[in-house]
């Protein structure tokens, strides 16, 4: 998605006006701000920009303050390209080798995964991805049906297929991640992954899954667990990650219990947690 950058120059006797203007802009769709020497720049997805609303908001400030801005368009591109062009391959649990297309193949590993991330999350480097993959390598995926929520690059879905899963539904709300999952599935010759773009509403309700994977964050997990329960059956394994032990794990555990999931184990790496639940 293209973004607009509004470079603001503020002339005011008091510096706090900048904070007030930023706060007001946050209320009309601007999501991030960067401080500059003469003021700040505000960023908004191009389709969300409404010049009338902006004029209305700015008119609410005292007339003694001079506010001017210049609009620049920033075309979408892969901002993570520098990191992606030289990251190191990673080995998980001694048996799974994750690399990019530009790395040397190592087919001697039982599971080799090729990922071109292109601004999607999931290269195995993040502690939460590592923890999820370690759990997966210890779990029986043979002929199982799998749901991967917040699939990012599709790395977990791809590993699930390599471990023998029969059918994998991989869902992400971000179109960039959806595309990435499709591309990486092809790169790894996966045939059992169906990718969907959407949030919890995209989960096909007519199925019940043997295994559910979700590496997202606490608030989204709390919001989605109820929906996971609708596509679970007794014995369904639910692996969650993307949060910290304190205070998140306890909150997620309590919430999951309400929907019949019992915490059976959790693992930690640099404060990040992955947890395993079983549906009653």
């Amino acid at each position, binding site marked *: *998605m293209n*973004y607009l*950058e509004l470079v603001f120059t503020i002339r005011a006797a*008091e510096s*706090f*006006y900048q*904070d*007030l203007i*930023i*706060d*007001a802009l*946050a*209320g009309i769709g601007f*999501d*991030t*701000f*960067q*401080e500059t020497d003469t003021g*700040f*720049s505000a*960023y908004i*997805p191009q389709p969300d920009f409404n010049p009338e609303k902006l004029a209305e908001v700015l008119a*609410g*400030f*005292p*007339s003694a303050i001079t506010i001017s801005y210049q609009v620049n368009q*920033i075309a*979408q591109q892969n*901002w*993570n*390209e*520098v*990191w992606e062009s*030289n*990251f190191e391959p990673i080995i998980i649990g001694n048996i799974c080798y994750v690399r990019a297309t530009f790395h040397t193949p190592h087919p001697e590993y039982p599971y080799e995964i090729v990922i071109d*991330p292109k*601004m*999607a*999350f999931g290269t195995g*480097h*993040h502690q*939460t991805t590592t923890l999820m993959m370690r759990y997966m390598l210890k779990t029986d995926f043979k002929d199982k049906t799998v749901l991967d929520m917040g699939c990012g690059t599709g790395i977990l879905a791809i590993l699930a297929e390599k471990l023998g899963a029969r059918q994998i539904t991989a869902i992400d709300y971000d179109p960039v991640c959806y595309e990435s999952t499709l591309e990486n599935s092809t790169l790894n010759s996966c045939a059992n992954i169906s990718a969907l773009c959407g949030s919890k509403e995209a989960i096909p309700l007519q199925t019940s899954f043997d295994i559910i994977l979700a590496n997202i*964050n*606490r*608030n989204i997990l709390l919001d989605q667990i109820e929906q996971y329960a609708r596509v679970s059956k007794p014995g369904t394994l639910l692996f969650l990650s*993307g*949060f*910290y032990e304190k205070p*998140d794990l306890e909150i997620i555990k309590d919430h999951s219990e309400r929907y019949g999931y019992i915490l059976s184990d959790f693992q930690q790496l640099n404060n*990040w947690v992955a947890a395993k639940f079983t549906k009653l």
Partner: protein
Amino acid sequence: MAKEVSALVKLQVKGGAANPSPPVGPALGAKGVNIMEFCKQFNARTQDKPGKVLPVVITVYADKSFDFIIKTPPVAIQLLEATGQKSGSAEPNRKKVASVSWEQVEAIAKDKMPDLNAFTVESAMKMVAGTARSMGITVSGTAPWNN
């Protein structure tokens, strides 16, 4: 030995909503930082303040690693929250829009002490009260040091 710093990036990002788009993308991506990792960490650490604009100072090191400090919202924003106002007064000298108590001023002063150039809570409180008045918010009651 301390790591060599390659850049300091000052942003204000909504809690739980960092994404790899501009300015996070270009500001960090050009330095070789893994943006996705920054977003995951920032969102996990700020998920209790969803939608609230939070100042964050990111230090990028020469080895492409990074760390960051999340600050509490600026004084002016905390004053709006304390008074339930959406904005300050358009005519702060003539038109007062709300009032705060000295207890509220003290709470904000203590919260922002690390960011304010103040050595004592009293001087921090004076700064907060000054900001309040400039915004058209009166401070009700007697200052504790006048009691």
